[in-house]
């Protein structure tokens, strides 16, 4: 099996895996970074969202062999102490129900707010529509993203 050098959450790691292994399973099975979730495996639910050079990407569809020098950030590396404005807003709004999709939601929102620091409600709703929340905590996700945007501006 080939060996790959990856930069994940600021650290260089070396993993051995089949070339078609999705980044999702490298993170979860090999690196114990289980905050990135498996939901559908076909990029439809967003539970596996990570940042590749800052851009929200579905890790279930990103084969390890396609990653070169890009910097990967997972929920575990989003902030040092869990205090990214989005993570704080998620607590203030008390967003989660089961909580399973929330890391993916936060990662999508983080990348979105970097591109659009002052979004309208409609822009938030469109930007987040790729992330499913089966518990339908959507009202609060929307509110928390707006709150984080205010904190960051």
């Amino acid at each position, binding site marked *: 099996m080939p060996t790959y050098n990856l930069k994940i959450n600021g650290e260089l790691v070396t993993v051995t895996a089949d070339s078609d292994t999705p980044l999702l*399973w490298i993170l979860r099975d090999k690196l114990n970074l289980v905050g990135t979730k498996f939901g*559908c495996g076909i990029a*439809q639910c967003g539970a596996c969202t990570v940042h590749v050079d800052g851009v929200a990407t579905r890790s279930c569809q990103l084969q390890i062999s396609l990653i070169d020098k890009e910097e990967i950030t997972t929920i575990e590396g989003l902030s040092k102490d869990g205090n990214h404005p989005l993570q704080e807003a*998620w607590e203030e709004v008390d967003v*989660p129900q*089961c*909580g*399973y*999709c929330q890391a993916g939601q936060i990662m999508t929102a983080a990348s979105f707010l970097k591109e659009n620091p002052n979004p309208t409600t409609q822009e938030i709703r469109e930007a987040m529509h790729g992330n499913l929340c089966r518990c339908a905590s959507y*009202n609060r996700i929307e509110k928390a993203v707006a709150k984080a945007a205010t904190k960051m501006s």
Partner: protein
Amino acid sequence: MSTQENNLTFSRRNFLRTSALASGGLLVGFNLFTACKPEAKPPVDIANLNFNDFNAFIKIADNGYVTIFSPNPEIGQGVKTSMPMIIAEELDIEWDKVTVAQAPLDTKNYVRQLAGGSQSIRQGWDALRQTGATTKQMLINAAAAKWGVEASTCKASKAVITNEKGETLGYGDVVKEAATIDVPENVALKKPSEYTIIGKDAVNVDINKITTGKPLFGLDYKEEGMLYASVLRPPAFGQTLESFDASEAKKVNGVIDVITIGDKVRSFVDKGKSNWTFKLSTTDKVVVIAQNTWAAIKGKKAIKATWKSDKELESTEYQEKVLNNILDGDKFDVRREDGNVKNAFAQADKVIERTYHSPFLPHNCLEPMNFFANVTDEKVHLIGPVQTPEFAAIVVADMLERDINDIQVDMTRMGGGFGRRLYGDFVYEAAEISDKIKKPVKVISTREDDMTTGIYRPAIKYRIAASIKDGEITGYHLKEAAINDNMYGLIPHFFPAGCIPNFKVSTQNYKSDVTTGAWRAPYTNFLGYAEQSFFDELAEELGKDPVQLRLELLQKVKGTADKRIQYSGERMENTIKLAAEKGNWGKAKEGVYQGFSAYYSHNTHVAEVAEIEFKDGLPVVTKVVAAVDCGIVVNPTGAINQIQGGVLDGIGHAMYGNFSFENGKPLNKNFDTYRLIRMNETPQVEVHFVENELSPTGLGEPGLPPAGGAVANAIYKAYNSRLYSQPFIKELEAKKTEVKS
């Protein structure tokens, strides 16, 4: 946790027992359900549960910090936060000094560790309060003894006990003594006006772990030497395994072995045992054992299997035909009958009859089914997300012919339940696999596995007929045609039972090979829409406002002597009035269409006003105002979250949920072909609670059943044509095309 049993105090009449901890501190064990009212029965019949002594614990350390072991599984309904709040309230300790831990399953010591039927808070309410209050009294008694004063002259607040001289002792200072004194009986509980924790927002206790991606869920669990297993089940319902070729699968890097399982489940079923209400598949299944998840998934795809069937496999058209035939026929079980419906219909000025259609629905918990098992000679260790851990332990013990005491179940947080995790099929698979390979193993499912080999909300049809005479509803007949099972026994006594003099509920079912079971708000998830949509039509027929019609009908059930009636006329009236007021019923702006719905289920009364507007030729739900009577609201932020989620879940599935079969095979396999509601399709849901001091009831389910009806009734206002089939989107898309052409 080590305990010293020598300081044990035990009162047989009581539900509570204490012991000193070797590490310092006090452990209080209590029984969550024996202290309940006698009529508080579990909503589901779980045969053969071992009812025993204790099912929850409080640990008070000598530094005064309190750990509350939350006994019930957490599936997103918030009980890991709200149940401990109730104890903390009566114990009189600041919420921030409390740590909440998920208790493991202990089949010897726990009772009804179950998440289902929105019952955790309702059934735990009395016991949780009594435990907190009794523990507080023991600490006071211990302090009083230390001071040599009467306990009645001492008070406790915020974990500090004070005597008349103003001397103080912290809870932690007296835990050692408290462990040795008798458990006091009949301790007074606080009045609701004295609450400082109940009724105040408490954020989800796992919030930081959730937002930073810490391991919490079943799929996150791993241990040294653990292997991964992917199970190939029949692609169509009604099939069994004939043969398979694993040669390609074994070539996949990381695949260790390919085995079959099934004989343990088969012998369990052959012994006449059953899994509660769902039919266990007794086919052999092919299992790929691998070193990692990806290899297990790839290996499974590479299996070439042949499946056989000895009868015709069902398609959706066939199921539709069977259900329609049931409705057109005359073979029904009568579930409730008041007066004489036949006469009322014969004498009526007019009889209105409508039929409502629903598809099967998969649960689609976002965390796919999974479970860890490690079967060794010493014990069977099971870890993962299951709503019925106790029942799973009993079945596994039986299947593997092990003593129940060999089985240990640890619960993880669950990435959604919605009823799917009431069924332990994946636990049995994990146990059977580990038993066979004698290694720790995690069974993992893909989304396709989950969606195509599920235990679905069955397709159901309701035919409702009502007779009108002299401007009154004189008769009402509800017929249910369902797949596999009919509505549970309480539902025939929901609204409008008791409001209409001639009333009948009849049910019949067809036994299918497709496995079906509970799905969030079983039966009422669809019945609520059908009935509330029907009442909207009745109101129009009678020339009455839909809210007014419901209020008039409810007058007839107030103070009823009929003990079978489940809902309260008074509470429903108050709930409807609150929804109408807060939702500005009848005062919609130009271009906004309102629909009303009210439904009682799971002991909670809910009324909803939905508003829709047109966008791109399609009606869009823009706002829902919900009024809820769930008694005392323990944790408002959690309660609002549950109702918002329930309403949106109800709207999402009513609008989009569609699932069909062709020759036994599900046609919808993943989120590209199965539509769930997404953020840009969700209205804002505003939640209001009826204020009272009645005992709290559940919130996980009751928000859902009225939602579809409120939306359908609003859509009717816009289109002037009724929706009789879910998902609504089918008809709405067709109308959109009509409008364009």
